[in-house]
């Protein structure tokens, strides 16, 4: 039963690492694009949010399931 806590912690932690690296790189590229062509910023911003949602999806699913395991299962 105690392993559930470790499992939930792993799900949360690894999900966070994945999301942080992914969105960090994405943000960097977004700023580069904005610096190179400032007039495209509105378009870039929309694309940034769409891709951030996609990058964030699997880690957030991991975090959601990790919290479910942590509270609803091992509650």
């Amino acid at each position, binding site marked *: 039963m105690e392993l559930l806590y470790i499992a939930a912690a792993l799900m949360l932690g690894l999900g966070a690492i994945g999301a942080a690296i992914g969105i960090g790189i994405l943000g960097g590229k977004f700023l580069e694009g904005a610096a190179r062509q400032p007039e495209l910023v509105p378009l870039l911003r929309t694309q940034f949010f769409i891709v951030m949602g996609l990058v964030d999806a699997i880690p957030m699913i991991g975090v959601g399931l990790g*919290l479910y395991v942590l509270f609803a299962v091992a509650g």
Partner: protein
Amino acid sequence: MASGTVTSSEYISHHLTNLTFGLHPENGWGFAHGANAAETAQQAAEMGFWAINVDSMLWSVGLGLLFVWFFRKVAKSVTSGVPGGAQNFVESIIEFIDDSVKGIFHHKNPVIAPLALTIFVWIFLMNLMDLVPIDWVPYIAGQMGIGYFKIVPTTDVNITGGMAFSVFGLIVYYSIKQKGISGFLKELSFQPLPKVFAPFNLFLEIVGLLAKPVSLALRLFGNMYAGEMIFILIALLPFWAQWVLSVPWAIFHILVITLQAFIFMVLTIVYLAMAHDDH
């Protein structure tokens, strides 16, 4: 709301159990009610497939009707003269949705834009319930004798799953309507690798096809469930610490709410656009 000393895990699991109505093997038709949240959830699970989360359904259908009623009211009293505040607001949303649909979907289909508008506004309304302080409505419901009352429908995987699989039904429907059954199967089985690897292709494509609704459903569920969980955990803190944490989290959560509704809509349009274009 059990008075007296409520342990933190009881408080958390209380806020996580739905009001489930269904046919229980022993108790027959009725609401799942156990001594504590864990037993109630256990009874709800025993009710099997046909149990209905009454609170999620109530809030999602209610918010859907609110959306339909409000947009219809504004649409009926539309004036080409000086528009009122509501009309400006509705027009700006419709233009925003129209632009994103036009930008992504390049085929002729009258269903897509209204579907995108419904998905965006409905999911946004359902997510907005997450900003209501979590103890208010369950406390009021507690006074009215309703034990468990989860007010955010999108933290219930059944609701997000239902929406995602209805979108999946549309994807399959439009694929077949656009390319015919043979075209659709051909697209599935002759895709990446040459024809001779058809069964392997088919397996890959089926997995890819099923990944769409599952990721749609779990993305929205994961974000909203994690968001609500943070609010519940903040509510466990001593009262003077709550404002320091819940205000910034709520402000950030406003972005998450709109973003998740927007992404669910954009991906629905993208998937339907992919279903329409034949190679």
